[in-house]
């Protein structure tokens, strides 16, 4: 049962060959068996089973909503009414949201069951899940390595088959990189495709929610429910509703695949490169053509991102001040002391580092040199993509320069950690859709991801390209060993 795609689970549920309570119970027990992964921050069986019972009741009444009764895990960045929403931080370690995020709300209306809240890097700041206040997540493929981050708990849960599907968020690669490390499919939609309302903000102009699943088809199914304009998010885009599942019908005959020379250069692990190139050959077999393209400003993505994202974060995280909710330091002598102790004790090292970087970059006298400059770079980076897409339909390359690294190996070197996202960050800066799909294993048995990048709001083309590969290969069916 744990290997079935969610479309099949939904069919089984509607056909009543299995009940939502049975299915939910089954995955809850798998979560318990895999507790060592530390993939979840909150599991509340009573809460989940109550939702499952409600789904079963609706099914009895003939409700055939797309995901009715299907248990789905959520990154602990999505506000869930009645459940803890910690964002992986001590400062929100006691926060129970009084409202549901739009993503959660839409899934609830469709009858999906909240299976639990997954572990993550604190406030989504990290590429290894090691910055979580609730401890690191282990990669199901090799428990000594990281699952990637920041949506590490979601990727690990889907990889270990302890959740049929999960949500994640991606600010600089936080869906795609852990998907690559854990051998699952992770899709970051175009900016504005999925409502950010109720998604705890890290960097507002870059954050985008999306699915982490075992296949592109499952991703499309989940996206059909959660995507679309939301009047509560002014940056969500009003367009005609897309049927992402129906968009999976095209073949890739004649598809022009752009390969950025910058994605295959210095720093790329040779095994990763070889495996990615093998996947590209598969696309050629399917009738696609490969074209070398140039993204000349690729080098500037990391510095650009590490000015803009912390700048926005420094402001977004100002609300965690101990005044209205969340953690407040127990002892303080006055207001300023309360602020300082609350934030010093409530935030972890990486979050504090980024708040300081961002505060500095926005300060009088530095703003033009950092923030304004970075915004200019951001436009250049977006232009690079626009020019590239004059020559090709989609862009492909490795999702990450290496496979999963050992827990603790990069925690003292923030720059090395940041470089993990060199292929993914530019996609957020340009607001484009991008997916990571598993395309093989390295010699130590760790998954390798292929990234497919599409044009703005060309989400269906990206999903379709991924789906075509998955129709003729079975890398996405591979399970971690030892289960």
């Amino acid at each position, binding site marked *: 049962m744990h290997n079935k795609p969610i479309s099949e689970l939904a069919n089984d549920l509607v056909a009543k060959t299995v009940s939502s309570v049975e299915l939910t119970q089954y995955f809850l027990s798998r979560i318990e068996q895999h507790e060592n992964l530390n993939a979840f921050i909150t599991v509340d069986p009573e809460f989940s089973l109550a939702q499952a019972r409600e789904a079963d009741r609706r099914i009895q009444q003939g409700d055939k909503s797309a995901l009715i009764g299907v248990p789905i895990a959520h990154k602990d960045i*999505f*506000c869930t009414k009645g459940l803890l*929403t910690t*964002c992986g931080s001590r400062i*929100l370690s006691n*926060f129970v*949201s*009084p*409202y549901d*995020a739009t993503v959660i709300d839409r899934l609830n209306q469709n009858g999906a069951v909240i299976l639990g809240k997954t572990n993550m890097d604190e406030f989504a700041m990290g590429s290894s899940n090691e910055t979580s206040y609730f401890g690191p997540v282990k990669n199901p493929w090799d428990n000594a390595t990281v699952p990637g981050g920041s949506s590490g708990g979601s990727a690990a849960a889907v990889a270990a088959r302890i959740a049929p599907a999960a949500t994640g968020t991606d600010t600089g690669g936080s869906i795609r990189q852990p998907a690559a490390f854990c051998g699952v499919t992770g899709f970051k939609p175009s900016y504005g495709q999925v409502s*950010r*309302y*109720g*998604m*705890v*903000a890290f*960097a*507002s*102009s870059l954050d985008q929610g999306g699915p982490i699943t075992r296949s592109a088809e499952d991703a499309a199914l989940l996206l059909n429910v959660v995507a679309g304009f939301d*009047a*509560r*998010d*002014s*940056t969500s885009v009003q367009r005609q509703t897309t049927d992402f599942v129906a968009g999976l019908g095209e073949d890739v005959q004649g598809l022009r695949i752009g390969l950025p020379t910058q994605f295959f250069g210095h720093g790329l692990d040779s095994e990763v490169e070889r495996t990615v190139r093998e996947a590209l050959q598969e696309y050629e077999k399917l009738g696609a053509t490969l074209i070398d393209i140039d993204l000349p400003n690729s080098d500037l993505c990391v510095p650009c991102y590490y000015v803009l994202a912390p*700048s*926005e974060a*420094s*402001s977004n*995280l*100002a*609300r965690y*001040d101990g*005044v*209205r*909710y969340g953690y407040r330091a127990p002892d303080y002598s006055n*207001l300023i002391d309360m*602020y300082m102790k609350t934030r010093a004790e409530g935030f972890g090292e990486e979050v504090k580092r980024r708040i300081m970087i961002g*505060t500095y970059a*926005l*300060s*009088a006298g530095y*703003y033009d040199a950092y*923030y304004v400059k970075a915004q200019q770079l951001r436009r250049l980076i977006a232009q690079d993509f626009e020019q590239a897409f004059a020559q090709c339909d989609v862009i492909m390359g490795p999702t990450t320069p290496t496979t999963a690294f050992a827990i603790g190996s990069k925690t003292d070197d923030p720059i090395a950690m940041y470089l993990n996202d060199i292929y993914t960050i530019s996609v957020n800066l340009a607001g484009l859709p991008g997916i990571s799909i598993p395309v093989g294993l390295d010699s130590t048995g760790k998954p390798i991801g292929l990234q497919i990048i599409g044009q703005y709001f060309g989400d269906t083309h990206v999903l379709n390209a991924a789906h075509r590969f998955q129709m003729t290969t079975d890398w996405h069916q591979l399970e971690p060993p030892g289960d």
Partner: protein
Amino acid sequence: MNWEPVIGLEIHVQLLTHSKIFSGASTAFGADANTQACAVDVALPGVLPVMNEQAARMAVKFGLAVDAKINRRSVFARKNYFYPDLPKGYQISQYELPIVGEGNLIIDTDDGQKRIGITRAHLEEDAGKSLHEDYHGMTGIDLNRAGTPLIEIVSEPDMRSAKEAVTYLKKMHTLVRYLDICDGNMQEGSFRCDANVSVRPVGQQELGTRTELKNINSFRFVERAIEYEIERQIDILEDGGSVVQETRLYDPDKGETRPMRTKEEAHDYRYFPDPDLPPLELDDDFVEATRQTLPELPNAKQTRFMSQYGLSREDSSQLTAAKELAEYFEAAAGATKGDVKTVSNWIIGDLSGYLNKEHREIAESPVGARQLALLIDRIHDNTISGKIAKEVFDAMWHGEGDADDIINDKGLKQITDTSAIETVIDEVLTRSALQIEQYKSGQNKVFGYFVGQVMKATKGKANPQQVNQILQRKLDA
């Protein structure tokens, strides 16, 4: 040395929208603490702002009324600082690109009309309130006000005296109420002001170092605080010192300003464009449709009152200070057969006096425009004298009925029967031999004594013109 004060004002105007600028919560004043603060206003994790179109419309309406440039594209920015009643840790405001650009407002001064430049007006959200009483050494936070829409109107440093500053402020107060974008309630904080004040030697182009005055939330405080500050700065400069650039707080009890924070202590607000809100784009249709909603503006109305009714600039200015007052005047003027100038005098004089005494607005006047018109009709047709009319008005104010009822009930109808008046005059003259002698010896002011006696004898009801005429005739005979 002669010193010239230079003053600019920043006025915060709370907009009369039903809901907040970035959330659906109500903006009504006076509700229980935190009952009008939704998830967005409390700044819960994950919430996002959505711009209230009505607020943009009101800002544009203001911009058009001061002949300002309406920026078709304006940008919301975050002003970052920590304060317990600022839930997000930043205020959403507009910084580099405000919705309203340069405009101006014409004010009346002792030296004639003067144009005060408006630098800009931008949209922003209000903060909540910190409550320091009743919490036993702790501070209470009420977020009902958080997110209430404001426009901040920044003037050029064009004012040269405290009086001019108050005139400008009053004119602005009149304007926003005409536009129906603000209730103008200064006590509740719907209309607030900060003043930038500096002085320089007369003739010098360069501006002196300025201070910013806060907590001046009444017309009286504005005037007093600026006057105090001008004197303080002149004293410093004449003693050879220099003014420190700082924010100063006005203490109304002591009538003085004192330092709040210096330039060095000023916040670095780290403004940057709010990534949660796309730029506010206005198309021509929106601006034109808003222009159609503009009422006749105070200055235009004032000019019209001068030409249409032949009123003085001063009277027209007073009558147009509030839209409701101007409407009252026009209703009364249109309904009476009497003189328009008499209507104006009654409104500016007696009626305003009664209103002020009871702290009432014109809309709350127990004497309506038509009722006042009837009273003036009775003066016009000589049923009563102007003096008796005051007595009738007082009775009308206290709800004793219309002018005619009161005149009848109280028997106040003027005596216009010449023979009746003559009889009374004769009686008075008979017992006033001494005064007649004085009068005849050239003491003309004794004439008033006779008039007074006649009026006393008729309880004020004798027609004064007739009394004068007959008295004159008899005495000069």
